[in-house]
């Protein structure tokens, strides 16, 4: 069951702050290589992406994981939760900006309430008091805003250090970094943020290793599905109905590795999904 995968992918995405220049360089490089072995239309640069995935994996094994292990040993759980809450609270500003850009004004008002409550009663964001009052954390970012504006996700990319992304994710991440106050707090603060994020992700990363047969594909698929689910606020029914897929399998007309197209759905029937996933809209 991919219960923890979303948060893991989210956390990997959150490890944003360092090398956008490198990312753009990779994207440029990726346009010229790796196409010949493509099997998935969302991932035409699979070979380059796999190489980058293994690079990140090794970097994690030899640098991030050991450092994070030490960090976990020397800091108590409540301190890690506090640090996580602090950075999460700062990120709320970006959430509120993107609420507005997506015209989610009710949600924006509640997210503003959440930010104010946690910044004051929550001792500068270290304690998450807002969730207990029903003001849950929402996940909104500029990549989702671009999706709402109709920009397609483009090809899947694995970026150095940052991890899974898409073509659309690059400008999305650039905007989010710029709109996050922690970006301007200096390198030491950002390192703490990175370290804490990695430490919190321990369980989720373990889950990927445990649940997957091919961790690269597992990560890619759960990332793309999770982003699609966020961008559509749970309205997307893609990959849910495999009925036509079976029919096509029987007639042998389907192209291998092609993505399953979403079944047409009556949106009114899935309204409850909106209420569940984004109750604050």
């Amino acid at each position, binding site marked *: *069951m*991919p*219960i923890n*995968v*979303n948060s893991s992918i989210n956390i990997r995405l959150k490890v944003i702050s360092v090398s956008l220049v490198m990312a753009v360089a990779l994207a440029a490089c990726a346009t010229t290589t790796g196409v010949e072995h493509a*099997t*998935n239309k969302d991932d035409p640069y699979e070979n380059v992406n796999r190489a980058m995935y293994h690079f990140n994996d090794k970097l994690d094994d030899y640098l991030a994981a050991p450092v994070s292990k030490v960090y976990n040993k020397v800091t108590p759980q409540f301190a890690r939760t506090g640090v996580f809450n602090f950075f999460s609270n700062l990120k709320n500003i970006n959430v509120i900006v993107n609420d507005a850009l997506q015209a989610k004004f009710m949600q924006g008002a509640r997210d503003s309430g959440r930010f104010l409550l946690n910044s004051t009663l929550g001792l500068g964001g270290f304690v998450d008091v807002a969730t207990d009052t029903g003001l*849950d954390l929402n996940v909104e970012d500029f990549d989702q805003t671009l999706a709402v504006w109709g920009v397609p996700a483009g090809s899947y990319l694995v970026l150095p250090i940052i991890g899974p992304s898409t073509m659309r994710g690059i400008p999305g991440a650039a905007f989010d970094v710029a709109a996050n106050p922690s970006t301007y707090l200096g390198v030491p603060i950002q390192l703490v943020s990175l370290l804490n994020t990695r430490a919190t992700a321990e369980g989720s990363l373990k889950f990927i290793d*445990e*649940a*997957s*047969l*091919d961790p690269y*594909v*597992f990560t*890619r*698929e*759960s990332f793309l*599905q*999770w982003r*699609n*689910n*966020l961008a559509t606020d*749970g309205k*997307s029914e*893609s*990959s*849910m*109905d*495999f*009925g*036509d*897929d*079976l029919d096509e*399998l029987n007639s*042998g007309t*389907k*192209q*291998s*590795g092609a993505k*399953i197209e979403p*079944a*047409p*759905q009556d949106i009114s*029937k*899935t309204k*409850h*999904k909106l209420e*569940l*996933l984004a109750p604050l809209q």
Partner: protein
Amino acid sequence: MILKNIKLIVVLMMSMLTTSAVFAQDDVGLTAKQVVEKFQSELIAVMKDGKKLGYAGRYEKLSEPISNSHDLTKIARIVVGKEWEKLSEDQQQKLTDIFIRLSISSYAHNFKDYSGESFGFDSEEETTRGGVVVHTHLVIPNDKPVKFDYMLKEKGNSWRIINIIANGVSDLALKRSEYTTILQREGFEVLMTKINEKIDSYSKL
């Protein structure tokens, strides 16, 4: 006297037939929602006894509920996509068998103990291709609830789960991508080895 005996035998036979019918057609006649709820309650029951049962005990207890509520044969076929046709009959059978074992061992591994979790029903809807999606959520104390959407198709007279979508991530689509990629890049034997290793690690962890 003879008549009485015949009557008794008939009654006995009737009751035996009824009993066997109940066993053989466990989930027959249930609605899609009932199939899901029955399976979820069986799962929670196993979780409650999880520690005492151990992995082997959980595997044994879950085996029948999973087989009765899921269409594992169909799922095994969908997860390899078009590659299914390229497999020999023997390979198809091997894949189906190992996939059934993997599915049960994955449940036995992941739902190993109980800390107050419960499933709740949200709604159900029909899909355009004659399937039903049952929307539920798993309540975890002190954590965010996890959405579980079950896609069911009719198989004979009963509804069977063919896909589970947890918080928007489809288990079937995930497995399908993994399995087809491994088949295409590394072949059938590697896939079998990897699944066997996975089952092995589930039984030990």
